[in-house]
């Protein structure tokens, strides 16, 4: 049999088969959805911010809980699952500073170029959700661009 794709290491498959924080929050501070039109990956991210540090500075607020729902390929779903754990305790600022390399580091595997948009979908949905919450963005749905 094959060597098994580097992309499908145990960790990815584990998060795909047993997703963490799957579902929807009852009282999210913000919610956003996004898709990869070509793959049909679809993800909804619910984010709950801590209520204390409300000093008017949205970006310093701490993320208390994250949940995701949706479906799609193993890469997009595992990435959402890992991100949902990873974001807990981070500030909105830290979320917004994440880039695709951070996502790939989090996944811990090499992502082939054509699959990067699967990997970053959850991160982009969470970031767009945060920016909408801050009033800095106005989109209904996040879509990752398709180069085909």
């Amino acid at each position, binding site marked *: *049999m*094959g060597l098994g*794709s580097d992309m*499908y290491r145990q960790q990815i498959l584990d998060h795909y088969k047993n997703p963490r924080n799957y579902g929807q929050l009852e009282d999210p501070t913000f919610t956003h959805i996004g898709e990869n039109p070509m793959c049909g990956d679809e993800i909804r991210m619910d984010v709950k911010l801590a209520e204390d540090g409300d000093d008017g500075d949205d970006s310093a607020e701490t993320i208390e809980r994250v949940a995701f729902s949706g479906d*799609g*390929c193993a890469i997009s779903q595992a990435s959402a699952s890992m991100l949902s754990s990873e974001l807990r305790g981070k500030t909105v600022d830290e979320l917004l500073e994440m880039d695709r390399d951070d996502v790939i580091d989090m996944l811990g595997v090499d992502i082939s170029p054509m699959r990067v948009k699967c990997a970053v979908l959850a991160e982009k949905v969470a970031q767009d959700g945060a920016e909408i919450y801050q009033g800095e963005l106005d989109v209904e749905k996040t879509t990752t661009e398709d180069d*085909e």
Partner: protein
Amino acid sequence: MSHQQADAIDVGAIREEFPILQREFDGQQVVYLDNAATTQTPDPVVDAMSDYYRESNANVHRGIHHLSQEASEAYEAAHDRVAEFINADGREEVIFTKNTTEGENLLAYSWGLAELSPEDTVVLTEMEHHASLVTWQQIAKRTGASVEYIRVDETGRLDMDHAAELIDDDTAIVSAVHVSNTLGTVNPVSELTDLAHEHDALSFIDGAQAVPNRPVDVKEIDADFYAFSGHKMAGPTGIGVLYGKRDLLEDLNPYLYGGGMIRKVTFEDSTWGELPWKFEPGTPPIAEAVGLHAAVDWLEDIGMDRIETHEEELAAYAYDRLEAEEDVEIYGPEGGPDRGGLVSFNLEGVHAHDLTSIMNDHTIAVRAGDHCTQPLHDKLGVPASTRASFYVYNTREEIDKLVAALDDARQLFA
């Protein structure tokens, strides 16, 4: 196997002409099953193009020097060769485009924008490629015409009763795909054309997946327009063909303007040159035309009938092998004369993109996605599928490898 013909294709000899098929990644030889996207290019075609650049390169349009004469003759001869190949009435009926997509757009812009009005309907099929679906949809929006879709039934074939209902006196054009790039269905395009003509409508056939692998005779189909791409038929990228009946093309205005296409130009106005040049302004794809000419020679050398048989057998074999797997769902008709050389499917519990990545670990090249038929995938109720598509150089052993690799996916995702 039993139904192999006495004069079956010599795949071994053919493969020798494709060095790319010997390539290895991680020590495994490539299994190229993505031919519906683009086919590989045999040495004689590559040689024809490099010979052209080495020996005859110049701009066309009847330059007076030797090289330009040679280039012009080669470019014109390519039109003649393609005309003969599809049984058109000469080079006047063969317009070189960039690809099938441009052929669709050429007609939609030059005929559709000028002629369509809110009373008209454009009849498409639910299995149209975006090349035709998106193009007619947008032209219809601009002209107020409406678009209707002939239903695809549960077997993946067109519902011809529905076609007979939809095509009526309001129909201005019927645009249908000859062989579906997703379902593999070979559509009854002469019947559709007859229906169109009974109601004085035009017929446009998208032959991108037909011309590469079966004899196509535009007269027999009686299509008014027929489009295909060089890169899917052992030819180069950058060149495609739009066939049109001469009297229709003569009445049509071009939609691209420029040099090389005009008869007379004054500061006030211009008149158009002869067919097909009036639709080919600017410097055309000359080396690509030479390559397409060589590809047509190469294909006819093998024989389009034999290529068709080879593809039909591979598709039937792939269908049967995949059908035998309980967790595989296949789309489109079973193997037979109305299934072209491709099979789209899904493995239960594994997203098409994951499956295709795993196939790639075995150096098996297949395609995942919606294959530019998003509305059809919506109808099938799946976001994507994996497609294996075959050509003259593919073998049953390669299909066996594809089926064996499914186990790897099952193990990973169990």
